[in-house]
Each structure stands twice: as structure tokens, then as C-alpha cells.
């Protein structure tokens, strides 16, 4: 039995026990306080562990990264260089390529996952094998991006024309007489970026489908029936009744997909590592940090990512407030 196993057992049992003991112990202490103070102190003690983790792992590093992005590369004697790292980002060709790709990711991934998710949710509502269809579409979400990368290496594999194609896609287009394509080494028209986006569409459509489908089932069937009685055809019912009612759900799903597309890293790292014009911001940052060792520039890249997400965060908070007010 190796020591890691014993540590893991200790953590799995010990940490929950410590937390329960913490809550139980603080309740004892709170009871010693005057009655008036108890309800004021208690919530903060219950929130304490969560706020400590959030502060340490999300709030503090964000502030540190913003500050670090204003300093020079060298760790030992950091020099304040103002916005130079940002200037580098805006003038560097790799960075510009990454920006363009991230915009492509954002538009196409969101459009396709939400669109296909909606289509599938509406279609499977009309067949008997709905649960099977949904499980199959949802399945890729349980697969790690790295394993998905391997799966799609098989799909996109390339052999020179004439040789038997082992890649599913090239074999498929071969049957109609098209020459094999190097899907993942193709900078022209950013074809490889599109190939990578397709993988993520495959993975995330199930997520959109499941949530949209649940909202779809929440729509009162009498509403739809009333529209049909009034003479609307199926398409009109969908466009005028179903679609508007799905609005808030589509907003939630789109937000999630936009955030996912901005954070894209794993699939690019494993399949192309940003070569052939497939660079994305997150991968660029990891490269600056671990290959080049420029923490200043890496921090600036991270801040750019954060800035891109701020409008979405604002939208989310507004959405959330609106929801809370009807709770």
C-alpha cells in the first residue's frame, strides 16, 4: 500500500470531518455570544471556508495577474513597463491570429451548439427512442478533451493519395472521389481551426440539447394546441410560440458556450499546439508562460481574456438579478 493511498484516505475522511467539526464548534461558540449578535456572526462563519477558497483561488490571483501584466519579463528584478506587454499583444502576429481564431470559435461554436442543440431537442421530442438519441448526443461530454483529441486524430487521419485511408473522414470523402485532406495541418482558410471547432461542437451539442429539451418540456402544451387550432402550421407554432418561450434558456446556454469558447485550450494544445494558424488566446498564454518564460506577457494575455469575458459577466449578473426578483 503506498503512502499516497493513505494520504488520500486521510483527506477524504479528515477534511469533511474537520468541516463538520468546524460548523459544530462555531455553533457552540456562537451560543456564548449575546442573542443579538448570534444571527449577525453565524452566516459569516458558515460562509467562511467558501469565501476563503474563492478569495484565494479566484479573486486574489486575478488582482495579482492584472498587476503582474504591467511589469517586465524578468522575475528577479521586475521593472514597471506600463502597457508595453499589451502593446506587444496588439502588434504581435501570433496574437492577432489567436484573436481572429477566438472570434471564430466564439461565433461558430456558440451558433452550432445552440442551433444543433435546439434542432435535436425539437426533433427527439417527436420520436419514441428519445432517451437513446439524447444519451448518444450527450455522451461526448463525459469524455475528456484529451481523449476526444485522440478520437478525432482517428477521424482526421491523413494518408497520401493512393494509399488506403485510415482516417474516417478522408475515407468517406474518398468514396466520392475527393482527394484526402490534411485536416489538422491546413492553414489555408483556417481549415484546421474549423476542424478543431467541429470537435467541440460534437462535444458540447449534448449540453445545449439537454437544457433546451428540459425547457421545451416545460412549455404548456395547451399553448401550442391553441395556436394550432387558430390555424398556425407547425413552423409558425415553433417560430411564434415555442422559440420566444425558449428565449431565457437559449440565453443561458449561449452564455455558457461563449465562455467555453473563450477559454478553449485543451483541444488545441493536444491536437495542433497552435500550429497551422490554429493558435488561441489560452494556448498563447500557456506558451508565453512555460515555453518562453515571460510571465509579464503571459499575464497580459490572461487579462485580455478576462476583459473579453467582462461584458458576458455583466450580462449574466443582470440575467441573474432578473431571475432572483421573480423567485
Amino acid at each position, binding site marked *: 500500500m503506498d503512502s499516497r493511498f493513505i494520504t488520500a484516505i486521510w483527506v477524504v475522511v479528515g477534511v469533511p470531518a474537520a468541516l463538520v467539526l468546524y460548523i459544530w464548534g462555531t455553533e457552540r461558540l456562537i451560543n456564548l455570544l449575546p442573542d443579538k449578535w448570534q444571527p449577525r456572526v453565524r452566516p459569516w462563519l458558515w460562509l467562511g471556508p*467558501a469565501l476563503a477558497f474563492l478569495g484565494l483561488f479566484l479573486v486574489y490571483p486575478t488582482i495579482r495577474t492584472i498587476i503582474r501584466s504591467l511589469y517586465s519579463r524578468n522575475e528577479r528584478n521586475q521593472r514597471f513597463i506600463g502597457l508595453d506587454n499589451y502593446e506587444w499583444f496588439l502588434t504581435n502576429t501570433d496574437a492577432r491570429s489567436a484573436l481572429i481564431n477566438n472570434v471564430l470559435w466564439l461565433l461558430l461554436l456558440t451558433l452550432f451548439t445552440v442551433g444543433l442543440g435546439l434542432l435535436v431537442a425539437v426533433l427527439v421530442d417527436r420520436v419514441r427512442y428519445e432517451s437513446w438519441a439524447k444519451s448518444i448526443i450527450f455522451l461526448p461530454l463525459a469524455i475528456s478533451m484529451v481523449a476526444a483529441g485522440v478520437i478525432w486524430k482517428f477521424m482526421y487521419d491523413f494518408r497520401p493519395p493512393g494509399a488506403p485511408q485510415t482516417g474516417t473522414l478522408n475515407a468517406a470523402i474518398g468514396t466520392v472521389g475527393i482527394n484526402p485532406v490534411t485536416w489538422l495541418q491546413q492553414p489555408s482558410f483556417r481549415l484546421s481551426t474549423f476542424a478543431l471547432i467541429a470537435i467541440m461542437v460534437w462535444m458540447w451539442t449534448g449540453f445545449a440539447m439537454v437544457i433546451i429539451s428540459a425547457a421545451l418540456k416545460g412549455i404548456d402544451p395547451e399553448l401550442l394546441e391553441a395556436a394550432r387550432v387558430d390555424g398556425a402550421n407547425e413552423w409558425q407554432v415553433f417560430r411564434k410560440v415555442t422559440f420566444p418561450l425558449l428565449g431565457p434558456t437559449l440565453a443561458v446556454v449561449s452564455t455558457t458556450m461563449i465562455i467555453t469558447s473563450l477559454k478553449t485550450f485543451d483541444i488545441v494544445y493536444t491536437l495542433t499546439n497552435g500550429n497551422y494558424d490554429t493558435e488561441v488566446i489560452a494556448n498563447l498564454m500557456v506558451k508565453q508562460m512555460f515555453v518562453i518564460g515571460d510571465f509579464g506577457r503571459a499575464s497580459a494575455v490572461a487579462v485580455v481574456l478576462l476583459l473579453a469575458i467582462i461584458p458576458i459577466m455583466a450580462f449574466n449578473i443582470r440575467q441573474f438579478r432578473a*431571475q432572483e426578483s421573480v423567485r
Partner: protein
Amino acid sequence: MTTTAIPDAPPATPAERPVRRRGRRQLLVHLAVVVLMVIWIVPTLGLLVSSFRPQSVLSTSGWWTAFAPPYHFTMENYRDVINQSGIGRAFVNSLFIAIPATIIPIFVAAFAAYAFSWMEFPGRDVLFVVVVGLLVVPLQTTLIPILRLFADWGLTGQFAAVWLAHTGYGLPFAVYLLRNFMGSLPKSVFESAALDGANHVTSFFRIAVPMSVPAFAALGIFQFLFVWNDLLVALIYIGLSNSENLPMTAAIANLVNSLGGGWYLLSAAAFLSMALPLAVFFGLQRYFVRGIVGGAVKG
């Protein structure tokens, strides 16, 4: 809002839809659904079939030829992967990482979610909105400062670093999900418990936790999948220099980068890494989908 899970979905009721040309339209629907199902299953099926084919035929013929004679199937890829490339150890590492990193945030989030749901204090709503807002902070922003912190504490390369980090990163979603669930529990139950003299600790352990089991299950599955499938956090806080502690995802990423053509190992390794999440997913998908939907749609 209904919270229908995948397997619970009621059968569609085309009979209730008196639409003209129903037959032809229904055929088109079937066709579209079946085509989508085939497209979605083919990549995974290809990997599964490939993982049982010997190295010699893998590089000369596509996986679909395996269904025609002569048949070549073997378990050798799996044997090689488990014995040689350290994947077996990485699999165990993944478990060591994922189980504590699933359990700790659930406990931490449960207390916070209860406070947000059933305690009154100034600034409660603002604080909750901030916590939910943290959902969208990109992981990449936090890597450098946390890495330096871990280096100062001597935690880099250790499992503890990844446990702590995943707890922090998983909390916004965990608090969000659990608060939505706990907050929607009937108020009367808590009030009558308070009248009977129950304090918050009793209410939490006797009422809130037992009634929130579906939410805990969903959160547990989601967090487990998230941690199990993570590459970035492990790669950075454990690091390539401590490869003996790296999880499956990192080991496979290394295989992809180093072997390129060593497919016969890759396919088996990738499938091994998928096996556990897929088992978790199919075993518990009922809870999974219901809990996620409860959190994301109901609001």
C-alpha cells in the same frame, strides 16, 4: 419548469398531433434523428474498435474494415498500455486527484449554500451575485499567482495542490447549484423545525442535507467529470517534472505529443481514460441531467 431526465423522458406523442402529411414528415424526423445519432456515435465507435485491433493492421486499414473477414482482434494494446507506458499509474493518480477534489468542494459549498438560502444577513444577495460572477473568471488568469503561492508553500508537484485548486475553481458552480436547490426547499419545514427548537446545525444536517441528495449527486458527478477530465490544472500545478504524479489526461497528452503515430497504444489509453467517466455517466445520468437542469434553467 420540468426537470425531466434523459431516461425518464415521456415517449413522444405523435398521435396527439393531428397534422396533415404526418406520415411523410415523421419519416423525415426519423431520418434526421438517426443520421445525427450515427454522426455522433461514429467517432467514439471508431476509437473503441481501433483499440482492439493489432498494431500491424491499424496503420494500413481503417477501423471499419474490422467488421469484414479476416478478423483481427486483440487485447494486446490494453496489456501494453497498462504494463509499459505508466498509464496504469496515471489511472490511479487520476483517482487520487479526483475523489478528494470532488468531496471537499461539496462540503465547503453545502455550508455556504445553506447560509445563502436560510440565513438573513446584510449584503447576502450582492455577495451571492459576486460568487456566481466568479463562474466566468478564466482559469488561465489564476495560474501564475497560484503557482507562485504553491511554490512558496512547497506544494507544487503534490496532489494537495490540485485538490485545493479544484476546490477553489469548482466552488462558484457548486454554491450556485446547491443554493438553487436548497433555496427551493419548502420554507414551512424549516420554520416548524425552528419552532421545535432546532438550531441551524440541526436544520442543516437533519433537513437541508437529506432533502438535497439529488443536487449533491448531480454536483458530485459534475465535479468528478470536471476534475477527471482536466488537463490544464494538473499540468501546471503538478508539472511535467513530477510526471509520477500526473493523471491520465496528462499521460495521454504526452503520448499524443511524443508518439504521434503510436496509435495502437493511444486508442487503448484513451478508452481506458473514458471508461470510468462513461460508467459514472450511464450509471447516474438521471441525477446528473436533472440536477444540472434544475440549476441552469430554473434559476
